[in-house]
């Protein structure tokens, strides 16, 4: 990676030239300095949590509705010692992962298949749009009727949302393929399979990743909202129960854990994306190195 950045900069008319020619002790803007950004995060979080804690402990905030950070932390620790992780987190994550994985694979496969069948695609398109514009939460009671109150109905809730997001983004990626690239493939006598794997798939990859990332968030939404309607275990069940008895600190503790899990998975997606489609992030990488 290093050698690449240098060779590009050596070239007399290379675009990377300007960054290389910067003065030897550059003062980078704050936005480009990771330590400054992290410090900013701490300050914002500190002010927010500080005010909340202050308001809660001095009685300026109604504890029944708002609780306060230290109490929430206590509830979180207590929850972790109890069944929050072992039952609820496990249950929700299992449902999301099963639903997401199945639906994502299906969404990608169906998009690629339909891209090869323009007629079928035109026929199915309005049905897809209709189903996708349906507020999916409205399906939860139906899914309970069909699949029971167990894991499977929550898997299906995740899947019903993930599928369309992944499908739509994959389709958009396939359609965004450069017409010049397709002309080149034709002129070079590429077979259908070669055109697919060397021209279409790589071009669709960035868009597929966006679909997967959004699909996971939507899958989480589907499962949790399904659990809130009815279920045995899971974050949604816990939220519903805590809200019912005004256990505000418990409620916030669960919310906090949901945010942490989403953030960790989003970070994993980012890393995977950077590895798989390195050519897209290349400029960014060589700039931060140079």
């Amino acid at each position, binding site marked *: 990676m290093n050698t*690449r950045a240098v*060779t*590009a900069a*050596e*070239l007399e*008319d*290379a*675009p*990377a030239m300007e960054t290389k020619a910067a003065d030897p002790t550059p003062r980078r803007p704050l936005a480009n300095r990771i330590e400054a950004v992290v410090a900013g995060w701490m300050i914002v979080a500190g002010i927010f949590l500080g005010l909340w804690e202050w308001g809660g402990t001095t009685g300026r905030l109604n504890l029944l509705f708002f609780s306060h950070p230290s109490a929430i932390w206590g509830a979180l620790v207590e929850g972790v010692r109890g069944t929050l992780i072992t039952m609820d987190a496990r249950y929700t994550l299992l449902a999301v992962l099963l639903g997401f994985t199945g639906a994502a694979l299906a969404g990608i496969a169906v998009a690629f298949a339909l891209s090869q069948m323009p007629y079928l695609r035109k026929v199915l398109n309005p049905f897809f749009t209709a189903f996708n514009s349906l507020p999916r939460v409205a399906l939860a009671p139906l899914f309970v009727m069909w699949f029971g109150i167990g894991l499977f109905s929550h898997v299906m809730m995740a899947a019903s949302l993930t599928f369309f997001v992944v499908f739509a983004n994959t389709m958009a990626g396939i359609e965004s393929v*450069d017409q*010049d*690239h397709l*002309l*080149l493939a*034709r*002129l*070079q*006598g*590429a*077979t259908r399979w*070669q055109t697919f794997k*060397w*021209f279409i798939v*790589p*071009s669709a*990859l960035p868009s597929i990743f966006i679909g997967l990332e959004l699909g996971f968030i939507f899958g989480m939404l589907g499962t949790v909202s399904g659990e809130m309607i009815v279920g045995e275990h899971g974050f949604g069940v816990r939220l519903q129960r805590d809200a019912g008895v005004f256990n505000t600190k418990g409620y916030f503790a669960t919310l906090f854990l949901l945010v942490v899990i989403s953030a960790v998975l989003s970070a994993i997606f980012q890393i995977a994306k950077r590895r798989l*489609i390195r*050519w*897209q992030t*290349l*400029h960014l990488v*060589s700039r931060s190195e140079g």
Partner: protein
Amino acid sequence: MSGKSIELDRVEQYFDSPHAGEPRKQVLQPTNLKFEGEEFVALVGPSGCGKTTVLNMVAGLIRPTKGTVMLNGRAPRVGDTDVGYLLARDALLPWRTALGNVTLPLDIRGVPKAESEARARKILKEVGLGDFLDAYPSQLSHGMRQRVAVARTLVVEPHTLLMDEPFSALDAQTRLSLQQQFVELWERVRSTVIFVTHDLTEAILMADRVLVFSARPGRICAEFPIELERPRSLAELQGTDKFHDIFRKIWNVLRDEVHA
């Protein structure tokens, strides 16, 4: 590699009008053309005169409305491995390195990896990109990207080369250096070249023969052999009286068509 013959026999082309109900438009009047092997022919003329149409017919991308096109005695076919097509836009795949973009046509033909990489490396060195094999297109300048495209076209050693304003998107200096490099490569390999351009200077400097197309509907209104010795040094040639004489002669014909 040596060039092959190309023959257009009473070829005519009409395109449907974009407005419904209007009659279709003629873009090319009946045209006869013959290209002998190892010949470098430039087609010049005003925009929309049908010169690119001729190129696309030879590539097999479009079928003439009337008449026949023969490439080595056979109808042209898209994806013919013996025909190279170079566009103004480089169409490099951003997810492949310079080397990967040049091996692409060889990969498509199923050439073993070791051999295809060796051939790609060699030709990239010849176009002056030996140090940029692993660079991605986004890291290369316009001129370098077009050099990769030239290498990608030549790596399969096509007997026929179709070029559609391949250097038009480059700045003057880069263009001259690429033209010179290309002429040198061609003088070694001698394939049949049909070169479409709107740049008369480029046409004279590079070609053996210049065909001037009329304004739409196009027809060939003049033909000029370019009797300049090879190997050519393009930068020097531009200053010679011989070049200026040819330029003036062709421009006298072309001017009327461009302003028609």
